[in-house]
C-alpha cells in the first residue's frame, strides 16, 4: 500500500466512523484492512459483474440454463448468439426486471442485485439501453438528457429543480459526444432512428454509469451511423464498462476485444472474435448457418 492510498483509506474510515457513544457499546464490526462502505461498488476483486449458475424458466422453457459470466471493470464485452439464446433475458435479470429461479448475480463483489428493484439497480449505476429506442418523445433532446442527469430524485426535489452551471456543462458535453448539439431543442419524437439510439445512449452516459448494457445498439442504423457508433463506443471503453448484445458481426469485429457466445441459455464459448469464430461448436449453432 502506498502512503496516499493509506491516507485515502483513513479518510474514508473517519467519514464512516460511528460516534464514540456507539463504539463504546461494543459493536462487533471487524477492522479489516480494506475499508468498504455499504452500498458502494467494490471492484477490488477485479470484476464489476458476476453471474453464477443462473437459471430461469418460463412455463417450463429454460430460457437461461446455468449461465455464468464474469465482467472486468472497463471491459467492452460483446455478447452474441442465435435467436432465443437468452441474451435479452440475461439483460432482464441483471437489471432486475426478471427474477431468476436460482443462481447469483453480483454487482461488484458486494452488491447482490437480486435483492434490489429496477429503480434501485439503475440508481447504482447499472444502466440499460433497450432494443427499440425508447426516448421521451414529447420532450426535447435537452429535456430528455436533463431528466437522466444524476442527482436527487423525488417529487419535492423536482418541483424546485434548477440546473446548475456544472450540470449545464455536463449536458453540453454529452450533447456534443452524441452529436446532437444542433438538435437539442427538437422534440425527441422527430429525430431519425439513429439519432434516437444515440440520444438513448446519451441518456445513459449522463448518469455516469458504472456498467452499461446495450441491447442491439446499431439495429436499423445506416453504415455511416454504425461506424460513428463504433467510434463512440471505443472512446467510452476504459471509462465505462460496456456489455453489448449485437447481431451485426461487422460492428462486433470493429469494437470487440472479448466476445461471449450464448446458446440455449448458457455460455458456449468465450474469447476474441477470431477464436470464437474458429470454434466448431459456435460454427455449428450460429455462424455456420
Amino acid at each position, binding site marked *: 500500500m502506498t502512503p496516499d492510498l493509506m491516507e485515502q483509506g483513513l479518510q474514508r474510515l473517519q467519514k464512516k466512523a460511528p460516534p464514540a457513544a456507539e463504539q463504546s457499546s461494543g459493536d462487533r464490526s471487524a477492522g479489516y484492512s480494506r475499508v468498504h462502505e455499504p452500498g458502494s461498488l467494490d471492484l477490488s476483486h477485479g470484476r464489476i459483474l458476476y453471474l453464477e449458475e443462473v437459471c430461469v424458466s418460463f412455463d417450463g422453457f429454460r430460457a437461461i440454463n446455468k449461465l455464468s459470466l464474469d465482467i472486468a471493470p472497463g471491459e467492452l464485452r460483446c455478447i452474441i448468439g442465435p435467436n432465443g439464446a437468452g441474451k435479452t433475458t440475461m439483460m432482464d435479470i441483471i*437489471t432486475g426486471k426478471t427474477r431468476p429461479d436460482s443462481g447469483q448475480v453480483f454487482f461488484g463483489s458486494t452488491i447482490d442485485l437480486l435483492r434490489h*428493484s*429496477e*429503480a434501485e439497480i*439503475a*440508481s447504482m449505476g447499472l*444502466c*440499460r439501453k*433497450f432494443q427499440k429506442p*425508447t*426516448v*421521451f*418523445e*414529447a*420532450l426535447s433532446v*435537452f*429535456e430528455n438528457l*436533463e*431528466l*437522466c442527469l*444524476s442527482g436527487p*430524485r*423525488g*417529487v419535492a426535489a*423536482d*418541483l*424546485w*429543480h*434548477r*440546473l446548475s*452551471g456544472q450540470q*449545464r*456543462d455536463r*449536458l*453540453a*458535453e454529452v*450533447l*456534443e*459526444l452524441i*452529436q446532437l448539439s444542433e438538435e*437539442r*431543442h427538437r422534440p425527441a419524437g422527430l429525430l431519425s432512428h439513429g439519432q434516437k439510439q444515440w440520444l*438513448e445512449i446519451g*441518456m445513459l452516459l449522463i*448518469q455516469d454509469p458504472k456498467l452499461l448494457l446495450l441491447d442491439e445498439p446499431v439495429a436499423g442504423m445506416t453504415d455511416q451511423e454504425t461506424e*460513428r457508433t463504433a*467510434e*463512440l463506443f471505443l*472512446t467510452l471503453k476504459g471509462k465505462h464498462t460496456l456489455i453489448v448484445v449485437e447481431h451485426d458481426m461487422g460492428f462486433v469485429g470493429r469494437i470487440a476485444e472479448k466476445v461471449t457466445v450464448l446458446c440455449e441459455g448458457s455460455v458456449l464459448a468465450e474469447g476474441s472474435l477470431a477464436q470464437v469464430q474458429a470454434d466448431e461448436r459456435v460454427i455449428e449453432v450460429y455462424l455456420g448457418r
Partner: protein
Amino acid sequence: MTTSTTFASSTLLPDTRQPLLSRRGWLGFALALLLICALVPALNLLTPSSSPLHLSDYAVALVGKIMCYAICALAMDLIWGFAGILSLGHGLFFALGGYVMGMYLMRQIGSDGQYQSALPDFMVFLDWKTLPWTWTFSDSFPATLALIVLVPGAVAGVFGYFAFRSRIKGVYFSIITQALTYAAMLLFFRNETGFGGNNGFTDFKRILGLAIATPAMRMTLFVLTGLALLGFYLLALWLTRSKFGRVLQAVRDAESRLMFCGYSPLPYKLTIWTLSAVMCGIAGALYVPQVGIINPSEMNVANSIEIAVWAAVGGRGTLLGPIAGAFLVNGAKSWLTVSAPEFWLYFLGALFIAVTLFLPQGLAGLFNKVFARKQES
C-alpha cells in the same frame, strides 16, 4: 465530425428557461381576473335589468357552474393529458367535495327545515334521533374547508397508492376508477349511509349565517369560483413547467425507460393523482352552493366520462384547451337542451366522432394549426 474530439467542449448552454407566462399571457390573465372580479359583478349587480348591458342571473349561475366544470377538466388534463392516466372516476371526487360542503349547508339550515328540528329533514323523516358520526365536524366551517380537501385527497391517496403500486395501467385503471365511482354511487343511494339517499341534500338556506339565495352571495360564490379556476390554472402551469411536469410526461411516454433512469414513478403518479382529486373536490364544494343541490347522481359514471370528454375536446396536454373544452361543451349543452332538447345527444355523439377523427389534439391543436398557418403566410 468524429467522436474523438468530443470531450473538449465545455461551452455553457444558454439558460432557456421561460417565464411562467409571457407578457401577453399575463395580460390575458389580468383581463380574465378583471372580468371575473369587476366586470361581471358590475354588469350583474349594478346595471338595471332593463339595460342591454345587464347580465342575467341565469347567465351568472351558468358561467359559475361551468367554471366549476372547467376546474374538473383542468384536473383531468393534469392526470390524463400529462401523466397519461385516464380516470373515469373523477366525478366521485367532485361529488365527495360537494357532499362535504352539502353537509355543512344542511347543518346551517338549523331548525328552519320542514320539521323544525335541529337534525336535517331527511333524518327526521327516517326517525333518527342523533347525527351519525360522519356528521361530527359538519357544523364547523373551518373543519368543512379542511375536509373538502382531505376527504377526496384521502380517498384518492389510498386508492391511488394501491393501484399504482400494483402497476395497474391503461384501460384497467380506467375501468377500476369507473367501478369505484359506481360503487360509491350505490352506497350513497342507500338511506342507511346517512347522506340523504337518492334525494341527497337540497333546500339550503344559509352559508356562514348569511342567506344563500341573495344576488350578493351568488356573486361572491361566482368570484370565488373564478379565482379558484385562475389559481388552479397558474398552479397547473407551474407544475407542468417544472421538472416534475417533465417527469410526468416521461411517465406517459415511456414509463419503463424512466424507471431505468432511476426514477420510481409511484410518488409522481400519486402526487398528481391526489392533487387532481383534490381539485375536483374543491370544484364540487364550490358547485353545490351555486346549484343548491347534491345527490348521488353526480357520481354517475356518465358524469365522470363527460369530464374526460371536455378535456379531450379542448385538447389534452395543453392547459387552456380543457378549460375551453369545458366551456364549449357545457355551453352547447345548456343552449341545445333548451332550444332543441331532442338533438343534444346527437350533437354530443357527433362531437365525439368529429374530435376523434379530425381533431386528435382537440381545440387547442386546431388553434395552434391555424395560428401557425397564419404566421407562415
